[in-house]
């Protein structure tokens, strides 16, 4: 007893799962950021295939149209995923700032070193190669 919405739901869940795994395989997505999507795809797949489970969840939540549970789950995971990306983005912003600060400082130290190893007039010390 399958209706079109169930077939579509299964197809979408499987596609999502395959897409995520393939992205990881091709190293376009690192493992640590793939987990939230894999769990999302598995949850959707479980609810799409197990019609009884879906009905039970819908009943428990007081949702009259069970497939709406799928949307709820999807929205939840999309929300969690974007929030975690904002966290990652913020962390990377801090890392980039720190990197740029240290690059600027190192650049100054390198300049100092080059200056102090330059020959003074009359000395025979070999000049370091300018970078």
């Amino acid at each position, binding site marked *: 007893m399958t209706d079109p919405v169930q077939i579509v739901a299964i197809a979408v869940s499987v596609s999502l799962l395959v897409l995520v795994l393939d992205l990881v395989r091709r190293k376009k997505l690192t493992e640590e950021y793939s987990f939230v999507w894999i769990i999302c795809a598995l949850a959707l797949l479980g609810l799409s295939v197990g019609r009884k489970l879906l009905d039970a969840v819908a009943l428990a939540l007081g949702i009259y149209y069970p497939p709406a549970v799928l949307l709820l789950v999807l929205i939840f995971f999309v929300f969690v995923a974007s929030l975690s990306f904002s966290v990652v983005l913020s962390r990377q912003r*801090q890392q*980039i*700032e720190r990197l*740029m*600060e*240290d*690059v*600027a*400082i190192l*650049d*100054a130290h390198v300049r100092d070193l080059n200056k102090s190893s330059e020959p003074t007039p009359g000395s025979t010390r070999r000049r370091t190669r300018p970078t």
Partner: protein
Amino acid sequence: MKAGDPRVLVLIPAFNEADSLPAVVAELRDDLPDADILVVDDGSTDATNLVVRELNVEWLRMPMQVGLGAAVRAGLRYACQTGYDIVVRVDGDGQHPAALIDRLMDPVLRGAADVSIGSRYVSEIGARLTVRRTAQYLLGRILTVLTRQQVTDPTSGLWVFGPRALQLLRNHHPSGYPEPELIMFLSRNRLTVTEVQVRMRSRLAGRSSLTPRRMGAALARLVLLLVIVPLRSSVGAKDD
């Protein structure tokens, strides 16, 4: 300079200040002959870097624009690494007369405060009430309540940092337009801050990087920070 005198570094964060920097540096040299000068060029797109190279000062150049807070943080870390005891932060636009700095450094040199801020408004009477001034006044009142110390000029760019402040801020100086957050952060970490009244000028040349849009963003961020910073735990000054 006598042996044992604290080493003072004047830190000038600069974004596109090629026109005003030479005058600012010349004035600092006249009024503070013992201090070294460090310009932190925050990825300027004008001739700032070329100008700085000609000035015979120490300089850092951020590879790209990262914002005022990070530029100052880089300068403070550089100051710590190269053995300075006191850092004076001065704007690159010439609005801070160098002659004021001695008076501003005094509480820090005496050990009466870790940080000293040059305020335009400590005892202001009959000032024009512009929108900007009103916002600054309100912010000052809020910070005064939150930090339990007098804050009259919450966005001043003229600061003196003593040794304890340097150790703390080399890694924790706030990013972005940092001043109000910095005041809260210092209070949260129990450093003593004092305000000294100074008379500032308007900028010598060039334009402020504070556009209305950036000011709006900074204000929104600030409203959030007013709530968040007091909730953050204080950080140890020694962690790296």
